[in-house]
């Protein structure tokens, strides 16, 4: 089977509008969660989030592009441009048919949906913008990236709630490994952080009003984020032949389904996903140095994820470095796995493990080394990224040092 390299990375999220600024915030433990800035805030019960601040889309996109790009697609396209620039990849006519794009998103163009519903229902208008459908379709981000870079091979979008991006990147890995393509831009994005999106999340009663504190005894739920990340996944031989920068190697991937509950996570499903990913990578549990946890900051997830890690890693669990960077960039829902691959790349490349910030009080049910509040230095050869979605869809990726 072929090996798969990551040769470029790009991102827009609450910590920064590129990888360098995101790494700086992750290493400094500087969170992007703060008071929300949006219309009708007084009608929301939850008034915090990890918004992408200072985002001037019109500086990046033409008026024509702006009319076609929902913020979720803007984040994806901007991230893809950065990733392609770093990778130095030129998509020749020969390569085009062997190149694709696979992105994850849970909701797609929800800003467009939100604005259009407001127009027809609240404002009584009888028409919406002409490109409402191509803006809101969940595959719009992948389509725009395929057009921007002439990617004519396998291209589509995955939706599995909070595991969407990990499924997208995992499928890209499998397709490259199996020879279905030579290059796939993979990742995901989400822009659910608007009035309608927050109203929906509020209703579920799992949002924290005062910060995201994963694995902490005082944790009070999740905090929503927005943004995305895109990576150039490339056949290792192809990458080496053109002298590409190799940021990491994708070693393994596994996906499982709990088949049990639409919101409550299952320990067994999470365990199986981690075990199978380790097996897929041809590794042993003790080969893993760092886990970027799903770590939502909800009472149930963090307790069950801890138990699952203890079961999979046994006595070695206490030697693992584990952090939930959702404490900083918020929960990006379908874009979560993509942005959370960045702290994995940073750990592999720089030996800096991003912390779990906001941590106050130890919880005996979450007693792993969660790197509280301050980043730590450690040589990381293998990093694992967990995504355990609502509806019981689990996807785990394993990366190795380049």
């Amino acid at each position, binding site marked *: 089977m072929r090996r798969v390299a990551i040769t470029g990375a790009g991102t827009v999220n609450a910590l920064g509008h590129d990888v360098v600024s995101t790494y700086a915030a992750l290493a400094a433990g500087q969170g992007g969660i703060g008071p929300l800035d949006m219309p009708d805030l007084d009608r929301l*019960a939850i008034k915090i989030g990890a918004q992408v601040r200072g985002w001037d889309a019109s500086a990046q996109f033409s008026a024509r592009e702006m009319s076609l790009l929902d913020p979720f697609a803007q984040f994806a396209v901007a991230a893809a441009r950065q990733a392609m620039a770093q990778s130095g990849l030129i998509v020749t006519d020969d390569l085009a048919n062997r190149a694709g794009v696979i992105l994850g998103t849970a909701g797609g163009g929800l800003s467009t949906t939100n604005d259009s519903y407001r127009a027809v229902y609240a404002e009584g208008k009888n028409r919406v913008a002409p490109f409402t459908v191509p803006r809101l379709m969940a595959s719009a981000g992948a389509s725009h990236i395929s057009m921007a870079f002439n990617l004519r091979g396998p291209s589509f979008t995955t939706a599995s709630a909070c595991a969407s991006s990990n499924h997208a990147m995992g499928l890209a890995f499998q397709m490259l490994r199996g020879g279905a393509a030579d290059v796939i831009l993979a990742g995901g994005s989400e822009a659910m952080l608007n009035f309608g999106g927050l109203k929906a999340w509020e*209703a*579920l009663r*799992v949002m924290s009003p005062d910060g995201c504190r994963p694995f902490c005894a005082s944790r*009070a739920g999740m905090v929503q984020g927005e943004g995305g990340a895109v990576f150039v996944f490339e056949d290792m031989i192809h990458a080496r032949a053109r002298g590409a920068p190799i940021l990491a190697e994708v070693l393994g991937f596994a996906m499982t389904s709990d088949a049990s509950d639409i919101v409550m996570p299952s320990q067994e499903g999470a365990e199986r996903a981690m075990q199978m990913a380790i097996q897929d990578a041809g590794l042993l549990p003790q080969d893993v140095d760092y886990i970027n946890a799903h770590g939502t900051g*909800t*009472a149930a997830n963090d307790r069950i994820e801890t138990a699952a890690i203890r079961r999979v890693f046994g006595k070695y669990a206490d030697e693992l470095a584990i952090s939930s960077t959702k404490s900083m960039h918020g929960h990006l829902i379908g874009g979560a796995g993509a942005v959370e691959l960045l702290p994995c790349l940073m750990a592999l490349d720089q030996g800096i493990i991003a912390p779990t910030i906001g941590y106050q009080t130890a919880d005996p049910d979450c007693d792993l080394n969660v790197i509280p509040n301050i980043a730590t230095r450690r040589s990381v050869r293998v990093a694992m990224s967990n995504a355990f979605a609502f509806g019981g869809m689990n996807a785990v990726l394993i990366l190795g040092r380049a």
Partner: protein
Amino acid sequence: MTDVITLSKTESQIIGIIAAQAMIDAGTLSAQTKLADLALDSLMMVEVVFGLEEAFDIAIPFNANTNSPEFDLTSIFSIAAAIDALRA
């Protein structure tokens, strides 16, 4: 029997909402009934809170992660008292 006779209007409404969610006969519930005894799962609890908010036009500060110490969901009686306090 005195429980049934002395049910307030608020308590009666609460019992109706909870009985519907728990799929049990409202006649088996009293003001003293504790929600913990009704085998309500987390989804049912969220539906109960939503039902109460809709019925009484109130906003209940309920967070499934923290069990909302500021709004006492222990029993029919405690819920009624909390609702009356919110509406006072």
